[in-house]
C-alpha cells in the first residue's frame, strides 16, 4: 500500500506560509530581535549578554505565538470549511491526515525559526560576537519545544474550536514552564491520594522548562550532553504520545 503524506505536508506548509498572520508574527519577531540591539546600547553592562537575553526571548515569544495560532486553526478550518471531505474521500487515513498536518506545521516552524535565527546571528556579528554553537543549540531546543506546542494545539484543534484550543494550549504552555512548582505543591499535600494525583499530573503535563537553556546560553554556563539528550528523547516520546491521542480522537470524529 503506497501512502503519500508528502502532499499533505506540503499543502499544510503552503497553507501556513500563505497566511498573512504568519508573516506578521515573523516580522514582529525580527523587529523585536533587532530592537534588542538598541536595548543593548541603552543598558549598562555587557551589551552581548543583553542582546542575547532580549533577542532570544523575543524570538521565543513570537515563535510560540506562531505555533499556537497556526496549530489551533489547522484541523478546525479543514472541518469547518469542509475541505476535509476532499482529503478523507481519497486513499488517506485519518492518521495520515494528522501526521501530515503535524509535519507540515513542523516545516513551517522550521522556516520561521530559521528566518529569525539568521537575523539574530547577523546581529551578534554586528555587535562583534562570533558564531556561538550554544545559540544554535538554543534554537534547536526551542524548536523541540515548538514541536510539542504544535502537537498540543493540533490535539485540541482536532475536537474543539480555535478559542477553546487557544485557551487550552496557552494554559498547558504556562503550566509547562512552572512544572517545578508541582514538587513544592506536593510537599503541602497530606493525603496519599492527592500526592499520587499531583505526581500523575507532573508526569502527564508537558515539562517545557527542559528545553529552556537561555540562561545557560546568555551566562555561558556549561551544558551537559546527557541533559540535552534526555530532553530530545523526552520531546520525541511526548510528541509521539500526543499524536497517538490526537489520531485516536480524530478517528472517532464524524463530519456532518
Amino acid at each position, binding site marked *: 500500500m503506497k501512502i*503519500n503524506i508528502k502532499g499533505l505536508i506540503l499543502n499544510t506548509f*503552503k*497553507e501556513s506560509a500563505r497566511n498573512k498572520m504568519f508573516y506578521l508574527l515573523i516580522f514582529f519577531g525580527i523587529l523585536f530581535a533587532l530592537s534588542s540591539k538598541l536595548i543593548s546600547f541603552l543598558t549598562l553592562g555587557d551589551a552581548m549578554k543583553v542582546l542575547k537575553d532580549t533577542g532570544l526571548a523575543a524570538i521565543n515569544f513570537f515563535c510560540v505565538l506562531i505555533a499556537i495560532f497556526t496549530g489551533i486553526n489547522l484541523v478546525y478550518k479543514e472541518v469547518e470549511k469542509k475541505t476535509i*471531505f*476532499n482529503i478523507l*474521500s481519497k*486513499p488517506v487515513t485519518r492518521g495520515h491526515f494528522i501526521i501530515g498536518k503535524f509535519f507540515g506545521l513542523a516545516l513551517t516552524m522550521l522556516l520561521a525559526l530559521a528566518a529569525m535565527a539568521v537575523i539574530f546571528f547577523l546581529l551578534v556579528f554586528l555587535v562583534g560576537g562570533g558564531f556561538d554553537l550554544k545559540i544554535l543549540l538554543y534554537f534547536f531546543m526551542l524548536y523541540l519545544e515548538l514541536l510539542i506546542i504544535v502537537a498540543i494545539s493540533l490535539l485540541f484543534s482536532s475536537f474543539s474550536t480555535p478559542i477553546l484550543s487557544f485557551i487550552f494550549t496557552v494554559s498547558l504552555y504556562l503550566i509547562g514552564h512552572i512544572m517545578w512548582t508541582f514538587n513544592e505543591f506536593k510537599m503541602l499535600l497530606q493525603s496519599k491520594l492527592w500526592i499520587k494525583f499531583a505526581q500523575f499530573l507532573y508526569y502527564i503535563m508537558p515539562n517545557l522548562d527542559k528545553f529552556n537553556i537561555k540562561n545557560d546560553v546568555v551566562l555561558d554556563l556549561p551544558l551537559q550532553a546527557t541533559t540535552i539528550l534526555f530532553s530530545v528523547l523526552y520531546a520525541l516520546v511526548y510528541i509521539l504520545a500526543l499524536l497517538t491521542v490526537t489520531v485516536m480522537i480524530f478517528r472517532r470524529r*464524524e*463530519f*456532518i
Partner: protein
Amino acid sequence: MRILEITNLKKTFHSNFLIKKYRILKGIDISVEAGEIYGFLGPNGAGKTTTIKCIMGLLFPDEGEILINGRPADTIDARRPIGFLPENPYFYDYLNANELLNFSASLYSIPAAAARERIDRLIQQVGLAGFERLKLRKFSKGMTQRLGMAQALIQDPDFLILDEPFSGLDPIGRKEFRDLILNLKEQGKTIFFSSHILQDMEMMVDRVGIIINGKISRQGKLSELIAGSTRCHEIVCSQISEKQLALIHPNFVRRDNQYIITLDNEAEINLVVESIIHNNGLVIAVNPVKKTLEDIFLNEIGEVQ
C-alpha cells in the same frame, strides 16, 4: 458485477447533550451494477448526502454494511477507485486550480509527469482552460463545481460518486456535465449521483433509487418504472365549437385553433371520439401521455406522506 452494495444502512443523529434523536437513515438497501448510471433521487433532507457520507467514510453508520467491489467501504483500498464530488465542494482558497489538482494527484501518488498530463486534459475537459492559475477564492460557484469534477476524476476512477453534481451550474454547464457523465459511462465507468433535478436524472440514468424520509421507497430500471405507466390520454381535435366540446367533455384546453382534451379514464376515449365526429369535428390525434420520473417521484412522496 456489483460495484456498490448497501445493506440495511441506518444512521441516527443526536442533538446536543444526546437529548433528541433524529433517525436519518432507516435501513437503506442499494445496489449499483458496474457500468451503469444510478440516480439517487430524493427531496431535501431525505438522507441522500448522509448515505453518500457513510459510503465515503465521513460518517459512521449505526447499522448495516457498505461494500465497494466486495470490500468494506471504510478501508482506504476500497476508496482508491472512487472519484468523489461532494455537495457544494469547498477547496483551499489560497491555491489555484492547478495546485489543487496537483495536491489531489499527490494523494494518489500519481507521478509528476503523468499528473501534469492528466491535469492539462481535465482542465480542458471540465471547461476551466485559461483559469488554471486563478486563485480559488476568485472562482464562481459553477467554476468550483467544475473543479470539483476535475479533482474527482484525477486518478481516472472506475466508480464516481457525485453529490448534486448539477448544483450551481447554468443550463450550458448542466448540458456539458451531462455530456461528460454520459461520456464517462461510454468509457465503462460506473456513476452514482444524487440529485433532486428530475429532468437531468431522467435524461441520463439507467436505474434510479428514490429515497424518502430515510427509506428507499422505489428502486429499479428507469425504463421499467416508466414503462406501461400511462398517466392519461390526450385527444387533439378541431373544427368544433367550444360550446359543443364542453358538452362532450369538460376537461379541455385551447391551443391555437385546436383543442386538447385530457382523459384520465381510458374507457372514455371511444365515446369522446365518436361524439366529436358526430358533431362534425375533426379528430387529429389520440395520444397516450406517459408517466415521467416526476410523476413517479411525486406519487411516491404522496404515498409516503
